[in-house]
């Protein structure tokens, strides 16, 4: 019975991983792939930009930046966010 155990182990630890690795090569062409990835990157970017706006307001509240800098930087970030949101909506459609 030992050889059955040995072959099973070889199959599980060596053959299965190889099948797992080469499986995508037998797929048909992948179309939706890039679209999905772009959408998740854009959503992440949107989150980061919102976070940056909040941090900017905090910097102003504790006196690390002046009113003028707050307004300029917030405006820049808001423009960037709106561009990202437009792209997200376009991607969803």
């Amino acid at each position, binding site marked *: 019975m030992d050889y059955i155990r040995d072959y099973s182990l070889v199959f599980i630890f060596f053959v299965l991983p190889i099948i797992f690795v080469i499986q995508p090569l037998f797929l048909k062409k*992948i179309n939706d*792939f890039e679209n999905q990835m772009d959408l998740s990157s854009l959503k*992440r970017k949107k989150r980061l930009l919102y976070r940056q706006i909040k941090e900017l307001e905090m910097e102003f509240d504790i006196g690390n930046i002046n009113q003028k800098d707050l307004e300029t930087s917030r405006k820049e970030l808001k423009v960037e966010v709106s561009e990202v949101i437009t792209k997200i909506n376009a991607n969803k459609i």
Partner: protein
Amino acid sequence: MTPIAGAVALNLAFGFSILSIICLFIFTLNEDKRLFLTGQRLSLGISFFVFLSTFILWYQLIISNFDIDYVARYTSIETPFIYKISALWAGQSGSLLFWLFILSIFATITVLQNQSKHHGLMPWVIISLSIIQLFFLILTNFVTNPFMPTDADFVVANGNGLNPLLQNVTMAIHPPTLYLGYVGFSVPFAFAISALMNRDTSTLWIQSIRRWTLVAWLFLSSGIILGGWWAYQELGWGGYWAWDPVENASFMPWLTATAFLHSIIIQEKKDMLRIWNMALIILTFTLCIFGTFLTRSGVMSSVHSFTASSLGPIFLIFVFLILIISFSLMYLRKSELRSEKRMESFTSRESGFLFNNLVFVVMCFAVFWGTLFPVISETVRGTKITVGPPFFNQINVPIGLILLALTGVGPLLAWRNTSKQSLIKNFTFPILSGLIAAIIFLFIGFRGSVVISFSLSVFVLATISTEFKRGISARTKKFNESIFKALFAMVSKNRSRYGGYIVHVGIVFMFVGFTGHAFDKEKEFSLTKGQSDHVAGYEFTLLKLSETERPNHYAWISDIRVTDNKGEYVTNLYPEKRIYFHKNPDVNRRQPHSELDIYSTLNKDIYSIFSAVDNENGVVFIKIMVNPLVRWVWIGGYILVIGTMIALWPRKD
């Protein structure tokens, strides 16, 4: 599983790493997504086979299969279970496999975490990680294979056992922690290379690796502190840092990584320092590989060099390749890396961060030069010139004090420019606190760098408390919150910022501990039963000398009573003299070892070393050291870890 399965798994991992690189490289040319998925899975396959071979080696160590050379060299039947586990990183081939094992964990997390993210960056990230894995797979497959059979034509009944210095719980934790730090920087490095390859030098790659860098930094810092703790507990010279080449090897990437952690904030917020950040992460990773080279090559004599080998040239070639390829890429992308924004004022937070970065890099260079100078002098002039702690202390103490001062100055500066009124408003309280502290310390009788260090510590603590106060009052005004609610909300909503300040508190505590070194006292003496001697106002009396046999050593245990100058009882110390492998018939293979005993308080440590024993006359030779403020170093370490964990804690979006 047999050792052959381990060796085969390593072979397969080697093959997979080559295929992964080829697949993903072709994908970058033809964009066939099936190749990307195959490359991704090949990368997971490399990790799988590395895990498999590592677990097989662990199993062989646990069952004491002395047919494997590595198992016979670093364990014996008597080796306790925990040290059979830690024997994986006790020797050269095992530790290289362990490096690979950790890298494979990180590579797997990176691949799985980014399956649907950063699709532009990921192919080159995986290629870079696979190339690093390939390097270590070449070493473990063809240069120093951990599954090599024992070179003997008889059955090996027992192994050599683990070096007694490594039979310490801290030593079972310290190398993995340090390795997690070293290896962790592979991921940010891979993202940096990928950003260069993709000509994407925006802040995207920085945002992707910030958390990774912090994790690696946390492990590297913890590893360094644990290493100091181990040296203090085990080596018996009374200190925790000796500017030893291997210690320096871990300190250099820590310095550049710390600089990087600060400067990426500038790139994220202001889109500046793109070239600088690229250079810093490349240097940090290269120094991590260089550190492994210093530890493993045997080119430096060190208390940490438990192995010496001919791996040096291979590591050196890899280090040069990384530097040449990375910096050539940077040169080719110099136009994309150039930032349009400029520093607007000297008194801005950007300038403060840049200055702190420069000081970190200068310190790194000083340590690098001092570490390599003996090798360079031997190569060029044929004579080895030793560079010891006096050189490093002379150079690094002033630099360290400048860094400490900058730790306080940075947070008080505003972005872009700090007005004169703000400078006065922000700096008055911290500077006054520092000055008052300096006067008090001078009055007590302290002088020189001790006064500077203690006063700067007060200054930095004052700036940090000012920052917390400003944040809390801003919230209490804006949201009408109570102080505690405001503090909690402020920290939880700005974890990286306030976590960073807590790390700074930890660093201040560590500086207090380092400064205590100026007051160390020590004395060596011999005692017979009932005899006493005095050190630094304490009396040490030998009450008893006993002997015992334990599974892996024989020990003489002294019982020393400590009383203070008023005759009041302080503690009993039990330092031991041990002989490891005491049953070995070959006397030369028995290893003597002094096991220390330390009485530790916030104020000072009483450190006892049992140097030798004269059995016939019942005389013990003892060394006592009284080391003030050492505990502050460890407390600082805990605070540093807590601060970093706060900074790392995931936030809800």
